[in-house]
């Protein structure tokens, strides 16, 4: 009797315990990223230029109630107020962008974003947020890592399939690689209507949500 009691309570507790863990959090927003690292003529990295494309459901949600001249289309100007709200809200989440310079973590490496705007693709009905995060001080490092992820996993970040990461004006000897560690099977820019058909291929997702860009300059 005693053992049954303990066992049942433990089982219950485990179920409850499983509930609030972040690993089980469920994203309602998917972002497909294209990233550019911007270099100064002296070879230092001045900032990260982001282009984040949201999934179509979230794009529909985000554009709800925004006045448009042509139905089904939004101009940059019409989206400007929303873009401002976006980058301002992102500050609270440190832009989901974290830098590691020569192996050293920097919690607060970036200043407020510049050159931000939203773009609407009427064919795909998706929004893309463009913004540039300047480094507080230009980074001259042999090894720079930039990670983009939502620690709480309410937003699922993934690299675009093609040309996900680019170095702009980098010294010729620098090499770049991008990875989603432990998650090579998961197509970062899964098309929504393909999600269902390709489901079997995607089972391996979610081992680790961090998307890492690594630049090495010898």
């Amino acid at each position: 009797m005693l053992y049954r009691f303990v066992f049942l309570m433990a089982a219950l507790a485990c179920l409850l315990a499983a509930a609030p863990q972040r690993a089980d959090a469920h994203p309602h927003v998917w972002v497909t990223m294209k990233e550019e690292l911007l270099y100064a003529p002296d070879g230092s990295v001045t900032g990260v230029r982001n282009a984040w494309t949201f999934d179509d459901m979230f794009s529909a949600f985000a554009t709800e109630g925004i006045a448009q001249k042509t139905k089904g289309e939004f101009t940059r100007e019409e989206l400007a107020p929303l873009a401002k709200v976006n980058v301002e809200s992102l500050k609270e989440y440190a832009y989901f962008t974290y830098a590691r310079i020569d192996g050293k973590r920097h919690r607060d490496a970036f200043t407020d974003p510049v050159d931000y705007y939203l773009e609407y693709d009427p064919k795909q009905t998706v929004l893309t947020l463009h913004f540039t995060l300047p480094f507080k001080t230009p980074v001259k490092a042999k090894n720079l890592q930039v990670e983009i992820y939502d620690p709480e996993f309410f937003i699922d970040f993934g690299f675009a399939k093609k040309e996900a990461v680019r170095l702009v004006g980098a010294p010729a000897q620098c090499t770049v690689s991008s990875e989603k560690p432990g998650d090579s099977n998961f197509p970062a820019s899964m098309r929504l209507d393909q999600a269902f058909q390709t489901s079997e291929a995607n089972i391996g997702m979610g081992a680790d949500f961090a998307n890492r860009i690594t630049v090495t300059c010898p």
Partner: protein
Amino acid sequence: MNRRIITAELARNVALALIAAAPVLAAATVTDAFAQVGPFGLHPPEATGVAGWILARQALFYRALSGLIRAAKTDGSAYWGLMGISFIYGIFHAVGPGHGKAVISSYLVANEETWRRGIALSFASALLQAITAIVIVAIAAAVIGATAKMMGDTVRVIEIVSYGLIVLLGARLFWVKGRGFLRTLHTIKSENRADAPKPRDHAHHVHDAHCRHHEHEDADHAHGHDRTLVHTHSHDHDHDEDESVLPWGHAHGPEPEELAGPGGWHRGLSAIVAVGVRPCSGAIIVLVFALAQGLFLAGIASTFVMGIGTAITVAAVATLAVAAKTVAKRVAASRPGYGTLALRGLEVGAAVLVMAFGGLLLTGYMASERMGMF
């Protein structure tokens, strides 16, 4: 019984209750810790095994919804797929944080509730969640043309109200259950002073074995009950057990007053509202998307079907909570006095948990959902 044995009994029962409650408390603490982790300080949690599998599934189902809603515009048969995926998504989705599993389960442990009421509570709160989402989108998007930010702000306000209600619900439970605990403690103390004679113990065992068939026929027996409150308590619990609260038990069905009559509903209403008033942000996004596609009705149907799926998951956890409580009651009944005390202690603990959940949610240490990033 001599005092030393009594003390040992008490210690054991308290320990038992603590062991049972510890993982739940630990979970709350772990969640707390996660919330405070600095961005780069820790890598995101890994989701492997069952959790990862469920996570992957529910993400796929959610993303399939948009394709199905689009398809439903031109192909009527896509509605079936939409409803099917909505249902399964609801089940998987509710495994994640939120949806009131923790609060409802703790509430059920703190209260004398049947599994039927547990399931009814789960379904009612899930239904309310669906209705709130639909009402918000219908008014905000369809009628006044509100923006996503306005909808997000509305949800935020509702969220705070919901979490505040959860704290109040826990506080009320704590007040009621705390007094019950103190009463039991007091009774045991006064009995200790009276130092119970052995013959009555014997009478009690006889009672245990035969009371079902000879309830209160024996005059001496009834007298024994009148003399100590504790015995009355243990008798009560035996009786509860007869009217089994477990679906698989030797059930004669719950007592009439335990069924969801007008009074019964009133009792659970606070829990339903506290948990159910906060809509699922996923449902809101799906609804707005359906609206943008000109298929708002399909979105509403999908939201309700999702709610049914959610209710099934929550009800499963709730039933487990009730089952655990029933077993705890049985154990308590086998140890008159201190068993009851431990049971009351467990109820107080569950009440504290409800308060703690509400507090953590309210202060943002425990996030259930975030409305995008806007």
